[in-house]
C-alpha cells in the first residue's frame, strides 16, 4: 500500500523545535513538510494591527531549516496562516524572511503566496447578499462592524493550496488557513482520502501536542495510507498513545465528533484509535461530509481605543477589607476630577487576589490573601486621554482617605517608575462569521515567484 509521509516540525512557525528531532524526520525522506503559523488565541490585537505574535528572528531560524531541507529533498513546503493572523501585512513579513533565506543560502525553488485578506467593499457586498451568517456564540454582524474593521481575513481550505501546487509551486506561504489545510492539500491532490488527510492534518498542525509528554514545539511525523493514517513523534522521549491522540481531538473544540471546516464537516464519531507500537497510533474511520453549503470562516478586528495601565499592589489589611467601597468611591472621584473633559473612557480594575483571573466566573467572593495585586486598566479614544484617566485614577487611589485608614503615606506599592504604561491601540474581534462561497480558488488569489541561486527572477 502506498504511504505519504508528512513532517510537522512545530506547532507554530517561530515557536522553535529541536534540530535533532527534525533531522530524524528528514532521514525518513518525507513527501511534504508543512507547518501552521497561525492562531486567533493571542487575541484580536495581532489581526487588527497587522503585527505577527512571533519575532522575525525566531521565524527565520525555523524557516531556514524547513526551506533548506525542502530544497534538498525536492519536496513541497507549505506554511499556513503566515505571520500568525494571515493578513497581507503578516504575509509580507514572512515573504521578506523567505527572500532573505533564499539569498543567504542561494536556494532555487518555485514559490507562491496566497492572499487571504479581503477588502471591506467585498465583505459588505457579500453581507448585503445574505451570504454571511453568524457562527456559534458570536454576536450578529452589522455594516458598522465591517466598516470599522482594520483587517478582515478568511480561513482558506485545501483548494487554493492545491491550485498553487498545480501551478507549479514548491514552496507556499498561505495567508489565513484552516489549520489542517497545509498538511492535507498536497495529499488530497495525489488522491488520498479527504477525511483521513484532514484528520491527520488536524493532529499534525499542533506538532507533538498529541503525544505524551506533549509539546507544541517538537516534531511529529504523519503517515497517510489509503484506508488509515498513523502518527508518531520524532523525539524518543515522547510517544503517542490512543488516549493522547483521541484527547487531542477535544482540544480547543466545542464538539469532538463533528469538526466543521471549509468545504464540509469532518465526522469522527466512528473513529478507531489503535496502538500500533509503543509510540505510534493508527487511526481509521474518519468520515467527511461535504453535502452542506460551502463556507469559509471570516475573522476581523477593529480598533476600539488606546490603553494605559498601572500595575500596583497593596499590603494593608484595612484597605483590603474595604476594597469594594474604596473602588466605588474612587470611580466617583475620578469622574469628578475629570469633569469638563469631553471624551469617553472605560475604567476597569483587575484585582489579583480576589477575581483577577476569572472575573465574573469566579465562584469565591472573598479575599483570603495578605496582599492584593491591582491593575488600573484604562481604554480611551486617544493615547493621551487614556494616559490622563490612568494618571488621575492612580494619584487619586494613592492618596484616597478611606474609612479607618491608619497608613497615611500612600495606598499603593508601585514596582516601576514610571508607574503608568502606555499599551497602545486596543482591538476587538469584529467578525467571526461564515462566508458562503463556491469559488475558493478565485477569492484566495495566488502570486507566483521563482528563486534561482537565491535571486528572485
Amino acid at each position, binding site marked *: 500500500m502506498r504511504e505519504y509521509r508528512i513532517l510537522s516540525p512545530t506547532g507554530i512557525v517561530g515557536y522553535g523545535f529541536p534540530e535533532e528531532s527534525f533531522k530524524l524526520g528528514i532521514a525518513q525522506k518525507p513527501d511534504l513538510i508543512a507547518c501552521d503559523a497561525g492562531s486567533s488565541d493571542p*487575541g484580536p490585537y495581532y489581526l487588527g494591527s497587522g503585527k505577527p505574535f512571533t519575532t522575525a528572528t525566531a521565524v527565520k531560524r525555523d524557516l531556514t531549516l524547513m526551506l533548506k531541507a525542502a530544497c534538498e529533498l525536492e519536496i513541497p513546503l507549505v506554511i499556513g496562516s503566515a505571520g500568525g493572523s494571515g493578513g497581507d501585512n503578516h504575509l509580507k513579513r514572512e515573504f521578506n524572511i523567505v527572500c532573505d533565506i533564499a539569498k543567504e543560502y542561494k536556494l532555487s525553488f518555485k514559490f507562491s503566496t496566497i492572499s487571504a485578506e479581503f477588502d471591506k467593499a467585498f465583505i459588505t457586498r457579500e453581507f448585503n447578499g445574505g451570504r454571511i451568517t453568524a457562527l456559534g456564540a458570536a454576536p450578529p454582524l452589522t455594516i458598522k462592524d465591517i466598516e470599522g474593521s482594520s483587517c478582515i481575513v478568511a480561513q482558506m481550505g485545501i483548494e487554493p493550496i492545491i491550485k498553487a501546487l498545480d501551478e507549479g509551486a514548491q514552496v507556499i506561504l498561505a495567508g489565513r488557513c484552516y489549520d489542517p489545510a497545509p498538511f492535507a492539500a498536497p495529499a488530497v491532490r495525489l488522491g488520498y482520502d479527504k477525511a483521513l488527510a484532514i484528520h491527520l492534518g488536524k493532529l499534525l498542525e499542533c506538532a507533538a501536542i498529541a503525544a505524551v509528554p506533549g509539546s507544541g514545539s517538537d516534531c511529529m511525523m504523519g503517515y497517510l495510507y489509503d484506508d488509515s493514517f498513523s502518527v508518531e513523534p520524532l523525539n524518543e522521549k515522547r510517544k503517542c498513545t490512543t488516549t493522547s491522540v483521541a484527547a487531542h481531538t477535544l*482540544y480547543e473544540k466545542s464538539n469532538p*465528533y463533528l469538526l466543521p471546516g471549509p468545504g464540509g464537516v469532518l465526522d469522527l464519531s466512528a473513529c478507531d484509535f489503535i496502538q500500533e507500537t509503543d509510540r505510534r497510533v493508527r487511526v481509521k474511520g474518519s468520515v467527511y461530509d461535504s453535502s452542506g453549503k460551502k463556507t469559509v470562516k471570516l475573522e476581523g478586528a477593529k480598533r476600539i481605543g488606546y490603553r494605559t495601565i498601572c500595575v500596583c499592589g497593596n499590603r494593608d489589611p484595612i484597605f483590603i477589607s474595604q476594597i469594594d467601597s474604596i473602588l466605588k468611591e474612587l470611580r466617583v472621584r475620578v469622574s469628578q476630577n475629570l469633569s469638563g473633559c469631553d471624551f469617553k473612557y472605560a475604567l476597569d480594575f483587575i484585582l489579583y487576589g480576589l477575581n483577577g483571573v476569572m472575573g465574573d*466566573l469566579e465562584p469565591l467572593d472573598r479575599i483570603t490573601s495578605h496582599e492584593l495585586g491591582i491593575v488600573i486598566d484604562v481604554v480611551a479614544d486617544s493615547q493621551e486621554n487614556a494616559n490622563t484617566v490612568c494618571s488621575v485614577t492612580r494619584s487619586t487611589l494613592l492618596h484616597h482617605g478611606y474609612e479607618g485608614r491608619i497608613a497615611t503615606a500612600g495606598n499603593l506599592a508601585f514596582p516601576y517608575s514610571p508607574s503608568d504604561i502606555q499599551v497602545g491601540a486596543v482591538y476587538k474581534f469584529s467578525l467571526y462569521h461564515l462566508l458562503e462561497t463556491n469559488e475558493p480558488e478565485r477569492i484566495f488569489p495566488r502570486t507566483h515567484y521563482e528563486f534561482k541561486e537565491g535571486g528572485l527572477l
Partner: protein
Amino acid sequence: MRTKLRDIASVIRSKNSGPYELTLDILFKRTEDFERFSSMNIIDKTLIARLYKIDKNQVLSIIKFPQAKAIKATIVRPCGSGDLGERDVYGAQQHAPLMNLEWED
C-alpha cells in the same frame, strides 16, 4: 466514600474554542472511573451553571467522548476574547472550579 474529581482525572483544563466560547475538558485516568462518573450524570448544564455562576442557557453543550475517557462542557465566554473586561485571553485558567468537585459514591 467521598471522591474528588482531581484524584481520578488525568486532565482538567479550560481553553477558548474560538473567541466567543470557552470549553472545559475532563479526562479520566481509568475507563472504569469514566464510565461510573458518566453513568451518574454528575456533570450537567445545571452543575456547570452553578460552578461558574452563569445562566443555564449560557452552557452550550455537555459531550461525552469515550475514546478519550473524556467529558467536555462548553460555555459562552463572558466577553469576546480580548474585549474590554477580559481576564484570560486564551481561556486557559478557568478550570479551577471543576478541580474540587466531590461527590458521595
